[in-house]
């Protein structure tokens, strides 16, 4: 491992360790598992749709808890270092500031991927116990959730590189809500076609991260016009690959912007 990668890995490993030892996260994780367990009860109330209810609730729980954790950890990632004054210890160590920031991000992204992986394993155990199959469709949906969470972390990290955790949380949550509703935003822009408002709405829809891309269950996709869900038709591996490229690109932009802001910051 090169020296540079070794330094980034040291920071990432530490960030991962911090998340794993965080009790709040453990509680949220238990909540997600409890939600899956509750889906067994709800499944019993449905008519022969136990597996369907479990898959729906499992994915929703993974996405919801993951989003809360990504938001909570992402906006606190840098501010906690400043509040707890650990930044005074780590910045004078032999590493570049950008290496610190990238290490923090990879640690957090790794935490999110681990979280989704663990919850997917638990969900698959529940599904199999109910006589269902987890399958590739579910795996693709879970990969998309992981990609969404990684992107959300990058957006939160960008805001936290220059603003307080409260403001960062507010900005990130707003972008997430808008990003989840880009289709609605685009159709709203169509209603006001040829007006300045349409341009503004189209601009916003293009600039904000397209979180809708990663949560396709029940969505009507642009190409083909099909409604997809994990129970019927679902997106292809090519779609997942394109979503991954989009997430990587947007994450890269957020990281570069955060690095530039972080590089000249005084730690008083």
């Amino acid at each position, binding site marked *: 491992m090169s020296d540079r990668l070794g330094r980034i890995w040291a920071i990432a490993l530490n960030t991962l360790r911090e998340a794993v030892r965080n009790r709040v996260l453990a509680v949220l994780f238990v909540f997600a598992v409890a939600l899956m367990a509750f889906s067994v009860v709800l499944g019993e109330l449905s008519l022969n749709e136990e597996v369907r209810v479990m898959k729906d609730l499992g994915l929703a729980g993974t996405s919801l808890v993951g989003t809360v954790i990504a938001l909570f950890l992402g906006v606190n990632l840098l501010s906690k270092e400043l509040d707890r*004054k650990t930044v005074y210890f780590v910045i004078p160590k*032999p590493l570049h500031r950008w290496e610190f920031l990238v290490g923090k991000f990879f640690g957090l992204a790794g935490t999110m991927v681990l979280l989704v992986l663990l919850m997917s394993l638990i969900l698959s155990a529940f599904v199999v116990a109910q006589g269902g199959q987890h399958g590739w469709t579910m795996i693709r949906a879970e990969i998309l959730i992981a990609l969404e969470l990684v992107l959300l972390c990058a957006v939160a990290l960008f805001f936290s590189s220059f603003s307080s955790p409260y403001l960062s949380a507010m900005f990130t949550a707003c972008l997430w809500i808008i990003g989840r509703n880009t289709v609605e935003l685009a159709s709203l822009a169509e209603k006001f076609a040829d007006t300045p408002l349409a341009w503004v709405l189209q601009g916003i829809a293009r600039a904000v991260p397209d979180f809708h891309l990663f949560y396709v269950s029940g969505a009507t996709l642009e190409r083909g016009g099909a409604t997809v869900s994990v129970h019927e038709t679902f997106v292809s591996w090519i779609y997942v690959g394109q979503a991954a490229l989009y997430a990587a690109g947007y994450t890269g932009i957020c990281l570069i912007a955060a690095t530039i802001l972080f590089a000249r910051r005084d730690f008083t």
Partner: protein
Amino acid sequence: MAVVEVSELRKTYLRGFWRTRTPVLHGIDLSVAAGEVFGFLGPNGAGKTTTIKILMGLVFPTSGAARVLGRPAGDRDAKQRLGYLPENPYFYDYLSALELLDMVGRLHGMDAASRRRRSHELVERVGLAHAARRPLRSFSKGMMQRAGLAQALMGRPELVVLDEPMSGLDPLGRKEVRDLILELRREGTTVFFSTHILSDATMLCDRVAIIVRGTIRDVGPLGELLSPAVQSVEVVWDAPAEALEELRRHPGEHTATAEGQVLRTTDAAVAQAFVRAVVAAGGEVLQLQRHRQSLEELFVSEAREGAGA
């Protein structure tokens, strides 16, 4: 070669919504030679920590230059060769001391075997072997300071920068830190430390700089900064009852204490004449002490001058 070199260093913070300018450093100059223990003294708010933060790359100067180990302050290669203990250190409290040292070792590019060996060696050296696997959140202030010293030494630094290393330590802890600094000096490591505890500086430093309100008031070896002239002489004496009154009429300030009669005078010749008179009267000189300027007096006078400037 200068290990730390600072010239015309200025720092102005912009604070609050209206970006109010708060000047903290007013063009300071400093030079620390290899192998010396350099004390950076000043009252609270004088600019010690800001100067150190600039040297460590935590804060950027408004103007002027700061070089560490021949490189610009904050340079990664310079940071590879230095160790730093922040004031009131805070570390990742979910880590144990050994995990903290392992992380620092990774940042210094050490391999796994070296990290393990050096970590164990350091926890022994700073007296934390018994608590090496406990999370740092359970550490007392003194233990945290020791962990801080251990992490500063992890990369076998040529320069160790310590910001108020004795702060919050009990007398035993302070002695241990003093011993460690002396040990580092014997090993040839340059030590730059800030303090407002003057007795520590007196005991440890080859040279000191006194900073007051962002301006260096004095730099040099303690012996040169302190005035060698005798400032006052104190004679503790006793004599037969019939001679007491006569002897007390000699010039100077007379007091009676549990130790005996005391004469304090700023004139050495007066003290000598008085000693001869005591002996002639059949009395006894119990103690004679020349009083020279202490670092504390120098510090206070510089601080007062700085405040008046």
